[in-house]
């Protein structure tokens, strides 16, 4: 009997199955028709048809971030690939493992400016962790498995595999299984160096004012990383803050949790960072939203930095003890040594440190007053949290004020429940990301906390929600402004609202209905709870147009170019502290 023959397209599908893929987000086109044909002939992998390729990538990000698995995207050549670029960049900056399969014109036409040809590997080189152009079917199965290995190991990220149509249609009788493929060069360091870990333990043990500063690396490291980190923080009794990407890595309702830090972080988190004597950075990267002006970032502390990516260490902030390794593994080791040596922090110093923190907490920096019929956006999100928290919802967001309010007023006690575009700040991320999260968790409550402007950026994905009957709740915090742009224009540009008004908005209720979804509109504070409950209880997808106070600003805020101690707590502060010229050039 003749040996079994596979087409390239069949090898792609087989490799996906062998990698444990059950869902692919994509959009067909000429250069990927053979793969779509192979998808048609099988039932193991579900293909989810999005409405634009950008939506496919964000959906795969939502899927990946809510499951810990690799998200898979399938798009055609040329415009299919270029539409994917924003999502790929988003995944690169937020370290989301993705495989993006792109169709390509047949190899003999590459470079001829053929129809729907783009130099996909050239375009995506700076916005992927790695990419491949498969010119020869012989290398296809190896490349597929290598790509999965690269996407997941080390600091996770997006990997593009560009597949010329003739490679998809070619035939071959050999297929390498995942276990037969070993990468030639890529061996990320996962275990931290023992002497650095020992030094770190000693430094923590002698700290008087320690703070844990936790980032998305802990979430990427897997649920056990959150467990060991939580145990370590509780054992030491030290305060803990997280970045935007790290929300959920440490329980958000825990008394040792200071809230998020950074530009719109809490007063207590930022002042703890400024005043600490030992900072333990676990899987965060000292980015500019966190540090404020670098020269005045936590000037008196010794810093420990645990990161799987050596290039994150000493990039923005010089640290005293660098530990290259997987966040979970390193924290587990620190915890083991801590217990073994029966360490504990000096009780008197720790008590004094907490009493200072409690004074900062007493400022109640997230306080707001909800009175009258107009809904404060903070109130809308706080009520949404209170009414949904028992169901442990998956939350996605778009980008802007609503995103920061969601980060401030929603609390996450578990990892993988919070999906937001942190690094790239991609408006339009949340709706497709919610599609991905809902597909992975059909029975769970998935809410896209959105702004009306961001929603408009990828609202074509309502079609996907309708087609797959995904009960996603789209909660639009509608203030009729690109709120964060308006806020910056107010604070930095003399209140000149250049092009930041959301004009000509659709009727969101009718829009929902036109897709066969449920539409709701809430305009009065007194109706909010009851309508929110109706949304939550609805088995259908819902667009909830929550019309809120139009010109509310997001506080607290570290203005650009300022230090942690220069936080603005409210409008009175902003008037008193004008932003410097140097600060204005920063974003």
């Amino acid at each position: 009997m003749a040996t079994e023959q596979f087409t390239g397209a069949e090898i792609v599908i087989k490799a996906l199955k062998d990698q444990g893929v059950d869902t692919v987000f994509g959009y067909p086109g000429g250069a990927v028709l053979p793969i779509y044909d192979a998808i048609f002939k099988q039932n193991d992998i579900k293909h989810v048809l999005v409405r634009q390729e950008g939506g496919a990538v964000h959906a795969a990000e939502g899927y990946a971030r809510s499951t810990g698995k690799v998200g898979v995207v399938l798009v055609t050549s040329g415009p299919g690939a270029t539409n994917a670029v924003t999502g790929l960049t988003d995944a690169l900056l937020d370290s989301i493992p993705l495989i993006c399969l792109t169709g390509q014109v047949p190899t003999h036409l590459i470079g001829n400016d053929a129809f729907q040809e783009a130099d996909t590997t050239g375009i995506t080189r700076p916005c992927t962790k790695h990419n491949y152009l498969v010119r020869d079917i012989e290398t296809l199965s190896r490349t597929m498995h290598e790509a999965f290995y690269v996407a997941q190991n080390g600091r996770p990220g997006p990997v593009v595999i560009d597949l010329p149509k003739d490679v998809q249609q070619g035939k071959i009788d050999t297929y390498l299984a995942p276990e037969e493929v070993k990468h030639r060069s890529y061996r990320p360091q996962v275990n931290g160096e023992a002497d650095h870990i020992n030094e770190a333990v000693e430094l923590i043990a002698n700290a008087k004012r320690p703070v844990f500063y936790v980032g998305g690396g802990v979430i990427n490291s897997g649920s056990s990383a959150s467990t060991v980190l939580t145990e370590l923080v509780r054992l030491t009794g030290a305060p803990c803050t997280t970045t935007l990407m790290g929300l959920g890595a440490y329980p958000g309702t825990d008394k040792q949790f200071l809230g998020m830090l950074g530009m719109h972080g809490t007063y207590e988190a930022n002042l703890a960072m400024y005043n600490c004597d030992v900072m333990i950075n676990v899987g965060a990267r000292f980015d500019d939203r966190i540090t404020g002006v670098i020269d005045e970032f936590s000037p008196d502390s010794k810093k420990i930095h645990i990161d799987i990516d050596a290039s994150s260490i000493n990039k923005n902030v010089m640290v005293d003890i660098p530990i290259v390794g997987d966040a979970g593994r390193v924290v587990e080791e620190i915890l083991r040594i801590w217990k073994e040596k029966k360490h504990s922090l000096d009780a008197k110093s720790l008590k004094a440190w907490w009493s200072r923190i409690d004074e900062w907490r007493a400022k109640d920096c997230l306080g707001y007053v909800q009175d009258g019929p107009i809904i404060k956006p903070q109130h809308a999100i706080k009520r949404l949290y209170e009414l949904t928290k028992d169901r442990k919802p998956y939350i996605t967001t778009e980008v802007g004020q609503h995103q920061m309010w969601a980060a401030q007023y929603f609390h996450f006690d578990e990892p993988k429940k919070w999906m937001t575009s942190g690094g790239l700040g991609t408006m339009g991320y949340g709706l497709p990301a919610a599609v991905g999260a809902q597909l992975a968790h059909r029975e769970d409550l998935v809410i896209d906390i959105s702004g009306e402007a961001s929603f408009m950026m990828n609202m074509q994905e309502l079609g996907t929600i309708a087609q797959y009957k995904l009960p996603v709740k789209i909660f639009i915090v509608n203030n009729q402004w690109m709120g964060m742009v308006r806020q910056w224009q107010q604070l930095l540009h003399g209140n000149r609202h250049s092009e930041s008004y959301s004009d000509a908005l659709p009727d969101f209720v009718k829009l929902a209905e036109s897709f066969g979804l449920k539409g709701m509109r809430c305009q009065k504070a007194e109706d909010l709870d009851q309508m929110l409950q109706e949304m939550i209880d609805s088995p259908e997808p819902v667009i909830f147009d929550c019309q809120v106070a139009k010109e509310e600003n997001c506080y607290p805020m570290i203005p650009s170019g300022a230090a942690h101690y220069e936080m603005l707590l409210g409008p009175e502060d902003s008037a008193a502290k004008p932003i410097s010229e140097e600060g204005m050039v920063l974003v």
Partner: protein
Amino acid sequence: MAPMDTNIESRTIAVLVDNEPGVLARVIGLFSGRGYNIESLTVTEVDVAHGFSRITVVTSGTAQILEQIKAQLGRLVPVHRVRDLTKEGTSVERELALIKVAGAGEKRVEALRIADIFRARVVDSSHDHFVFEMTGQSDKLDVFVDLMQPLGLIDVSRTGVVAISRGAKAL
């Protein structure tokens, strides 16, 4: 916080990579995308059987930037090894130049005389030109090129620096 060093240093970095399509673009894109300097860059396959290419890059920056450059190179997927030849002990650095000088009479004689002093070889000549081949450290090549300037220098092609560490250890 450790003090930031503002001193600019020059370094020669050797990078062993898989000889695969796009690998040079990745390295160059890394430097341009992140605003690092490339003073010189050479690349060619050095191990056909294993498919390794070796890139030698001369770059400059503060100590912190130089560490970043090495870390960023190190995380590129097809990169096997990154070595800072300047920092990790002594190394031999060489560059090759082909230098075309056109002219006649006294200047022509003078060019040949200086070439002899610099141990440059004549690899092509006619009645009105020489092509010199010269190997050495880059600064020696610079001096020779400068001396040829008034003597009819019309064309220069240089390879950029290649380097290898001294002693018995390999990359």
